């Protein structure tokens, strides 16, 4: 056991970074459940697509801060269109068929989508690991005895900004309020003139956008390969289950919480066991509180 203020501060910083990515991923996952009642198993595939598209854009255009900035927006646009398209085709079609078993049916549909997208990436781009050395700037610096890189600061800054913009959008804009209205009471929202199909499309598009942003930000560290989204997916599932499915604020806090806990677990436990510890803890939490820490009583789960 090493207890040293500098190491603890360093671990906290790394945990915060990890947590910001988890928060970004879980935000989208929670949103699709809250609004559309979809437990999206293909969420990690948007992380993967974000990483790939960003990789191809950056290797084609060259890496420099301005291009990284612009290409991020291009990736976000593409993944929004892709997510909205999937919602319009697959989920709209399933919604016509499915009734009481919607949650499980849509979950199995996302399983199919996940298998398809992952293997499509495998067929198109082979399992080769593709990475870039840095997104903005490779230099390291030391702030208050904590050593870090500009890229890492950019990750935290980027994801915090995205979370803030998203939170502002949900809280203060008309569309955001409409999304929340559908998530709270779909029938009432419909009767007030909210077009729920448009809201579904928008929600799924936004959720894929958030996942792909996580993929872009993590590209210099995680790289791009067909199964790159699997681990972030498992972690963001842990977060949303822990914080209660569909709870957006819970997902943000839960993301940082799990990120910090995991960083400490990796440092202080034997290699490979941290996932076991995290999952065992989660199973215990679920047994004690079946709807998570911040979860409300959800009816049709």
């Amino acid at each position, binding site marked *: 056991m090493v207890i040293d203020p500098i190491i603890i501060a360093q671990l906290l910083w790394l945990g915060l970074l990890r947590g910001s990515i988890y928060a970004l991923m879980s935000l989208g996952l929670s949103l699709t459940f809250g609004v559309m009642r979809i437990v999206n198993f293909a969420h990690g595939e948007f992380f993967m697509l974000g990483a790939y598209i960003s990789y191809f854009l950056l290797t084609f255009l060259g890496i420099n801060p301005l291009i990284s900035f612009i290409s991020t927006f291009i990736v976000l646009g593409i993944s929004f269109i892709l997510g909205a398209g999937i919602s319009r085709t697959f989920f709209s079609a399933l919604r016509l068929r499915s009734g009481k078993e919607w949650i499980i049916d849509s979950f199995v*549909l996302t399983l199919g989508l996940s*298998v398809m997208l992952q293997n499509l990436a495998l067929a198109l781009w082979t399992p080769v690991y593709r990475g870039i050395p840095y997104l903005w700037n490779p230099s390291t610096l030391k702030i208050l005895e904590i050593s870090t890189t500009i890229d890492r600061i950019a990750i935290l800054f980027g994801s915090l900004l995205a979370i803030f913009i998203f939170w502002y959008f949900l809280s203060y804009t008309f569309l955001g309020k409409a999304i929340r209205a559908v998530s709270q009471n779909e029938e009432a929202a419909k009767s007030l003139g909210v077009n729920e199909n448009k809201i579904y499309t928008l929600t799924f598009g936004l959720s894929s956008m958030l996942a792909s942003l996580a993929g872009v930000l993590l590209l210099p560290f995680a790289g791009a390969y067909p199964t790159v989204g699997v681990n972030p997916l498992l972690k963001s599932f842990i977060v949303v289950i822990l914080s209660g499915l569909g709870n957006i604020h819970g997902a943000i806090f839960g993301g940082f919480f799990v990120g910090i806990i995991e960083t400490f677990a990796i440092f202080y436990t034997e290699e490979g*066991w941290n996932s076991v510890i995290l999952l065992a803890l989660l199973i215990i939490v679920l047994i004690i509180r079946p709807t998570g820490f911040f979860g409300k009583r959800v009816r049709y789960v």
Partner: protein
Amino acid sequence: MVRGFVMSKGTIKVLIPFFILAFIPPLINNSFITTLFISSLLFGTLGAAFDFSMGYAGLMNFGFAAYFGIGAYATGLATNYGLSPWIGILIAIFSGAFIGFIIGLLTGRLVGIYFAMVTWFFAETLRFTTANLEEITKGYRGLLVEHLPNIKLGNLIVDFTDVSAFSLYYFILALSSISIIVMYLLVRSRWGLIFRAIKDDEIATSVLGINIAKYKILNSMISGSIGSLMGWFYAHWIGIIDPDIFSTFQTVYIVSLAYIGGRGTLWGAIFSSFILTFIFQYLRPLLIIRMIIMGGLLALILIVFPKGLSGIWIFLKKGLK
């Protein structure tokens, strides 16, 4: 009562496809095709055991690979410590039932998607644990498991060491038909009615004075012991197992079989397993394409034919009448 039940018309109807299946490989007499038949039956029965939970009691077991893997590892470790595979079969079934009991106990208060998540995390925990316990399980280097020993019946030697032998095929056929018959009899009995009642409305069922937790545990235990029975066969058949036997993809494949075949039919999973195995084998040079096809087929089935391939079958039968 039980005897009359076993010999009923329905049971015979369930057994007919197995009788037909018994004659096909010797007629074709091709060792490669026999291997495919063994594999189809193995995974089909896994799909049926998953269907026993999902299609009847509505328990979406997204960690089904846990049962399969625990059966394989139980017998793998037991035989490596010098026990006979025939004792291994008992250990495998017992450990599968035990895992089912634990899952049923843990998830007593959980429904629907939360049940799916906990079972998924459970299987992932088992995968990480077997990967980490390298001294015991050999981790990702893989655990070698001996083939089943030959049996001598007088002058006749039943050969179990050849992976494509007819004797192995008849053995899995027997295991598979026994499993299907047991599940079929159970879903036709009072238990089956209770499972379906739980699926339809849990609260209403509990109001009728039925101990829901007990029946959920029983369901998990039965599906678990059949899952690990198949794991036992798989380990001795393939000869090597690694922690990826617990992987999410394994579960996704089993879930796909049950969904593509049709939920709540038991037979559907075996049917779709045969179809998928042969389609996949035909597409062998295009290893990746077949996974895309499987994912697409799963999506298509859900959207267009919610009842799966067996739904098409029922539709055709009605059309003919």
